[in-house]
């Protein structure tokens, strides 16, 4: 069977599974719609969190980014996993014990202020929207490249599926589809990785193959030494050495960690488990499931890079393998014969380099480059879609709960009944799907860039406010509000300045303290903390019932009652 038929088979099978789950897990109360009734077992929640977290970017783009960044790609690996340590130790158990539905719930109640609640609603919606548009775009790209359907139709199919299970099942539907999506995406990521590791190093475990010797066929010697050698020979940066400054890598890593811990769609997953112990356990499961992909990704990056150079450098253009021609039509790989010798020169020097390679190709085409069987190649599409749709659904739920629960029920319209609130939640998710779909089809030029910055914004707004709310009993509303506003405005302003207003200045000389916009969230976090602590000193202590609330969150034992 051809790759395309296999792809259709996998995509249709996985989509039927998601729809089946949606029908089985209809939500009938706000409790089920917002937090899946609070009865999700920690293992299932760990898988759902992993799928929620690993987006189209983790699945499709990350290994490719690393294979072009070499050691500098480290900040994605450590940043996007190390954040879970913060989440598990500083946030998840306490927020579960607090026992509400959303992040603005916590901010609003802990800081006894409707303003604080509304600022949190605003931040949650902005962060989630920026992020969700990228997911829809990712789903559209997979559809159009693998199934050769129009991008618009691809996005529409993705929207319909998400709409179906998110609107019907809310958090309950999303949770159990995410469990299925995790299984699909990890299988789709690992199978090609294992095949390639076996092929190139005779070691079935990619994490070990990464540090092993290549087989005779691939020239022998350690993989990384070989890759360093090839890089030097062709004038690329040495793979295992860094190019970015130490302080920039430091700041980017920290921003991604704080951002991971502050992303509302990840935090709310911990509201769905039965109790505090299970919240800790599910954070452990989540990181294990994420680590499987994240420790494989750098191996895939190194395999793919070596293989790509071996396969295309100094080859006659007329003799390129079939995958090369296929991917040329999508413009992900492009050859210009600058010296007219009919051969492909793939080198570091931009004057002489004749091959432009899009980083996404490293995952999407990797199985083809390695000559793996058709069914393995086809898995990648189903995996990419699972990654994009699972993250999109989690984000859409945050947008929906922010509107129906935080903005309407706890804000403007406290009198509405549970059934009305549920209806508003469904309408909100419907509208959000439409808007996200629109931007998936007509991506504003800057969306792709801005997605990465959702982390900086989450880091600079939510992370300090929540941590202070738990660990600093006397933190008051004035401090928290001032901190969130300053952190958010500073980070957003810095990013907008360098990405939209003055992109020419976006280089090490133009940056503040040598920190790139990717890493500025760390400084935003520090500003938030400093402003909050300073303002607190000059304003009144929080009321005694709030201090009692904080003491209760800190006690051992199980979740508080919902009020």
């Amino acid at each position: 069977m051809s790759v395309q038929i296999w792809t259709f088979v996998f995509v249709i099978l996985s989509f039927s599974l998601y729809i089946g789950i949606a029908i089985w897990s209809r939500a009938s109360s706000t409790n089920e719609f917002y937090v899946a009734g609070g009865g999700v077992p920690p293992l299932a929640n760990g898988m759902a969190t992993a799928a929620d977290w690993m987006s189209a970017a983790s699945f499709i783009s990350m290994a490719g980014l690393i294979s072009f960044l070499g050691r500098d790609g480290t900040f994605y690996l450590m940043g996007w996993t190390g954040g879970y340590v913060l989440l598990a130790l500083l946030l998840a158990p306490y927020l579960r014990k607090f026992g509400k539905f959303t992040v603005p719930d916590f901010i609003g109640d802990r800081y006894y202020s409707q303003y604080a609640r509304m600022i949190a609603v605003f931040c949650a919606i902005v962060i989630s929207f920026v992020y969700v548009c990228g997911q829809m775009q990712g789903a559209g790209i997979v559809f159009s490249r693998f199934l050769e359907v129009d991008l618009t139709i691809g996005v529409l199919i993705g929207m319909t599926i998400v709409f179906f299970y998110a609107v019907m099942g809310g958090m309950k539907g999303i949770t159990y589809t995410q469990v299925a999506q995790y299984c699909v995406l990890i299988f789709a990521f690992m199978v090609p990785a294992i095949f390639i590791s076996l092929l190139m190093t005779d070691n079935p475990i990619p994490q070990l193959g990464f540090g092993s010797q290549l087989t005779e066929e691939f020239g022998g010697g350690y993989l990384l030494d070989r890759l360093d050698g090839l890089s030097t020979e062709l004038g690329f940066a040495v793979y295992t050495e860094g190019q970015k400054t130490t302080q920039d890598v430091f700041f980017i890593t920290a921003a991604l960690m704080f951002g991971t811990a502050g992303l509302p769609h990840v935090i709310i997953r911990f509201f769905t488990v039965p109790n505090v112990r299970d919240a800790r356990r599910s954070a452990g499961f989540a990181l294990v499931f994420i680590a499987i992909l994240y420790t494989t990704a750098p191996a895939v990056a190194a395999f793919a890079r070596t293989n790509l150079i071996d396969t295309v450098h100094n080859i006659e253009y007329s003799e390129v393998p079939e995958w090369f021609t296929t991917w040329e039509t999508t413009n992900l790989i492009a050859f210009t014969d600058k010296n007219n010798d009919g051969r492909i020169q793939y080198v570091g020097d931009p004057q002489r380099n004749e091959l432009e390679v899009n980083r996404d190709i490293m995952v999407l085409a990797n199985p083809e480059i390695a000559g793996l069987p058709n069914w393995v190649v086809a898995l990648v599409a189903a995996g990419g879609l699972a990654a994009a749709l699972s993250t999109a659904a989690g984000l859409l739920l945050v947008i929906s709960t922010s509107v129906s629960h935080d903005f309407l029920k706890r804000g403007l319209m406290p009198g509405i009944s549970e059934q009305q609130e549920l209806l508003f939640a469904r309408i909100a998710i419907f509208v959000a799907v439409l808007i996200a779909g629109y931007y998936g089809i007509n991506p504003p030029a800057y969306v792709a860039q801005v997605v990465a910055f959702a982390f900086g914004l989450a880091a600079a707004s939510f992370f300090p406010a929540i941590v202070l709310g738990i660990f600093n009993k006397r933190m008051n509303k004035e401090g928290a509000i001032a901190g969130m506003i300053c952190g958010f405005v500073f980070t957003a302003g810095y990013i907008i300045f360098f990405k939209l207003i003055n992109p020419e200045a976006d280089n090490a000389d133009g940056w503040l303290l040598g920190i790139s916009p990717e890493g500025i969230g760390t400084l935003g976090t520090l500003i938030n903390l400093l402003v909050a602590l300073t303002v607190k000193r000059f304003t009144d202590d929080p009321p005694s019932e709030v201090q009692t609330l904080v003491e209760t969150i800190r006690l051992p034992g199980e979740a508080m009652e919902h009020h």
Partner: protein
Amino acid sequence: MPENSAHSYWKGNLKIVLSLLSVWFFISFVCGILLVDFLDTFRIGGFKLGFWIAQQGSIFVFVVLIYVYIKLMDNLDAKYSDSTSEGSQNDAHHKGGVE
């Protein structure tokens, strides 16, 4: 839970969190970023040590840290739940509806 045992529970909790976070900081920011070039002078198999910690080793340590945390917190909870009468009976609360 009486005031002073609540206080010492919280202190025990903070001690666990702070010691684990110092390991977290050391492995990622110190070994994976600040000292990476120095550590690269050592090798394990086909890896330079610093490169390996940055791209894989740190992630394994993160996983271990969370599991150590789960274990230590379970012990701490068990130690304090003996001394209180209300700790264990709240398990069912959450299953109730929401108002």
